[in-house]
């Protein structure tokens, strides 16, 4: 475990790893495995998530003939960049935990990952049982089959710092909800000399998943592309409204045109800014006084849509089994093990990320949520999240929109309508038949 790295645990981990590192054996084969036996490999994001996977792997290895080993991929974007190259080189292992929706249609089309519906008779029923029919239907590929096991969601919401809100004379118990409420709160904070918000302005596509895109979904309640993912659908009122909101935010200087970092390095987590668009994974990043002052609210919606549940971006990740898997059935059995009720509950409590399990709330119990009040709004939010469009061009679409967002919202170089029109033209060309 990385997060609650109390000294004893750290020493224990250090000890075991050093011993492993210095013994003559390497290659990561799990201990106690007969020579020559197959080692099945899992890719998982480096860091806390990788550590969690390793723990589950240990549990599995203790009770099964087939042994798995987990390898780290770099966190963030570079991991996805390497996956496709590995698929092309047929250099993939058994499993990948953490495949993004942006990539899943390409992976499905490539033949680089297994068609789960075809390979495993219980695949669809497993997903239905765990996550519900809606999830299963949503992630069917163009050919109707399932290629990914939807794994977890991190709804994007808005953290706020109650102490800072109070300081600016705002009602800390009733955070803003609509555009005008948010803008009013930002204004009050700025007047009080407090930085309202510090979202990253980096142009890499996935940054938009944590600023503009959730507000777009809240306003539009549908994705960026048409139902058949063959035309743009964002050049409409919801697109204009949501981007105009951000334009105001930057034009008034509520969000500095500065390269604010994510998580640990974000000013919000250091108590220096009042709001932060992020997911539940940010909860462990808040340390010191911020952790006690934090509250969670919904993403801003247009004033006219002030009632009803707010939709946001769900940041859903998946587990895939590669076509190169040496032992397909063991890989599938491991997926089911990894996603069982016990491990799902452990994932929620340790990672503060939300497995796509309908019975999750009951599984962990009320007492858990009493101890983790900040998680409650996120778990409730999972009822109304949307994901990225299931198109092989999703990354290109988001890249195009990121440029539009920079141009119209961050730097105010062109009117929002014009930027969106241009982006729509480009996207139509990109995804059009």
């Amino acid at each position, binding site marked *: 475990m990385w997060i609650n790295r109390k000294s004893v645990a*750290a020493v224990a981990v250090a000890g075991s790893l050093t011993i492993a*590192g210095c013994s003559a054996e390497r290659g990561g084969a799990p201990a106690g495995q007969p020579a020559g036996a197959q080692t099945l490999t899992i890719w998982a*994001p*480096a*860091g806390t998530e990788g550590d969690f996977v390793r723990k589950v792997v240990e549990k599995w290895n203790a009770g099964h003939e087939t042994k798995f080993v987990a*390898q780290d991929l770099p966190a963030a974007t570079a991991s996805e960049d390497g996956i496709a190259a590995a698929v092309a080189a047929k250099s993939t292992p058994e499993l990948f935990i953490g495949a993004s929706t942006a990539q899943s249609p390409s992976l499905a089309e490539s033949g680089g990952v297994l068609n789960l519906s075809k390979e495993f008779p219980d695949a669809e029923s497993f997903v239905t049982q765990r996550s519900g029919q809606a999830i299963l239907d949503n992630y069917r590929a163009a050919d109707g089959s399932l290629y990914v096991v939807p794994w977890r969601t991190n709804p994007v919401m808005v953290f706020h710092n109650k102490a800072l809100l109070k300081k600016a004379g705002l009602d800390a118990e009733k955070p803003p909800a609509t555009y005008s409420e948010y803008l009013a709160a930002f204004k009050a904070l700025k007047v009080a000399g407090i930085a309202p918000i510090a979202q990253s302005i980096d142009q890499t596509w996935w940054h938009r998943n944590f600023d503009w895109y959730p507000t777009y979904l809240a306003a539009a309640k549908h994705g960026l592309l048409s139902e058949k993912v063959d035309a743009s659908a964002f050049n409409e009122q919801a697109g204009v409204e949501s981007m105009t909101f951000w334009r105001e935010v930057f034009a008034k200087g509520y969000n500095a045109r500065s390269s604010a970092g994510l998580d*640990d390095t974000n000013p919000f987590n250091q108590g220096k800014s009042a709001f932060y668009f992020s997911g539940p994974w940010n909860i*462990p990043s808040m*340390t010191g006084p911020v952790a006690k002052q934090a509250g969670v609210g919904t993403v801003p919606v247009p004033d006219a849509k002030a009632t009803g549940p707010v939709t946001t971006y769900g940041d859903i990740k998946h587990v895939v089994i590669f076509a190169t898997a040496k032992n397909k059935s063991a890989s599938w059995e491991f997926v089911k093990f990894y996603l069982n009720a016990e491990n799902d509950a452990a994932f929620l409590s340790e990672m503060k990320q939300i497995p796509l399990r309908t019975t999750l709330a009951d599984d962990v119990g009320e007492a858990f949520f009493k101890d983790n009040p900040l998680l409650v709004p996120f778990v409730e939010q999972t009822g109304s999240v949307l994901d990225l469009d299931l198109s092989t061009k999703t990354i290109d679409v988001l890249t195009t929109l990121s440029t539009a967002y920079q141009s119209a919202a961050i730097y105010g170089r062109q009117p929002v309508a014009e930027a969106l029109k241009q982006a729509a033209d480009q996207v139509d060309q990109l995804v059009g038949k």
Partner: protein
Amino acid sequence: MTRIPRIVRYTILTLGGLIFLFPFYFMIITSVSPPGSTGSLVPPSLDFSTWTFIFAELPISWNLLNSVVYTLGVVAITLAIGSITGYALARLSFRGRDTLFAVILFTLALPFQLLMVPLFIMVSDWGWARPGPETYLALIFPMAVNATAIIIFRQFFRGLPQELFDAAYLDGAGNLRILWKIAIPLTRPAFLIATLITFIGPWNDFLWGLLVVRDTYWQPLSVAVGILGSGAHATAGGGNYWGTVTAASTLLAVPVIVLFVAFQRYFVRGVIEDGIKG
């Protein structure tokens, strides 16, 4: 030798020195700053928790060994092949010599990212991209000959006076003997420069190493450190991202700096005192 006023010399050097040294000071000091005071120039107290953390997280000894093998392999092959190729280009004449030189220049112009995917497919097909000693082959061979090194060798061999070669030819010495007995001893600085320019490639390589080696125990140190530094969503090092990144960065830089300082005596003599007089 250009004699410049002492005051000018020291002003230039000190000013430059500050600009060059400061980021390293900042890096090292950040790595031992307690969380919460990273980014200050003088931390209120010293905190080595990021260091214990990275040593706990990485199989450092293996990573270091992998980096050494990877780097030595590339340097050795570059020196061996690069020097004879440079020699041929500079002092021998054969059909296609100019074409060959043009080809070598052209390889410099090729972005590695262009060849990366075909190379990855190749080494995977050959079974090199898997944990085990074959990992070293996958790492070393595609990087094995550094074209800049060849150009440097050619430059140095060309700088040698023709009379030396003429005399040796008259004595009946063959090409190989001339290369070994005359050209190489006279161009030691070229070997040093070539070593330097070559070894930073594999030592600091991130892209290629990351692609072909996923196993922690077979990864070069640079890849291990890069993964640690990538933690966008990882609360690495107990909520001290910059502390962890700078500690890992320092760890990667230290062996090279130590090597350079130790090497510097020979290096300086090579370039400055034995330098070729035109």
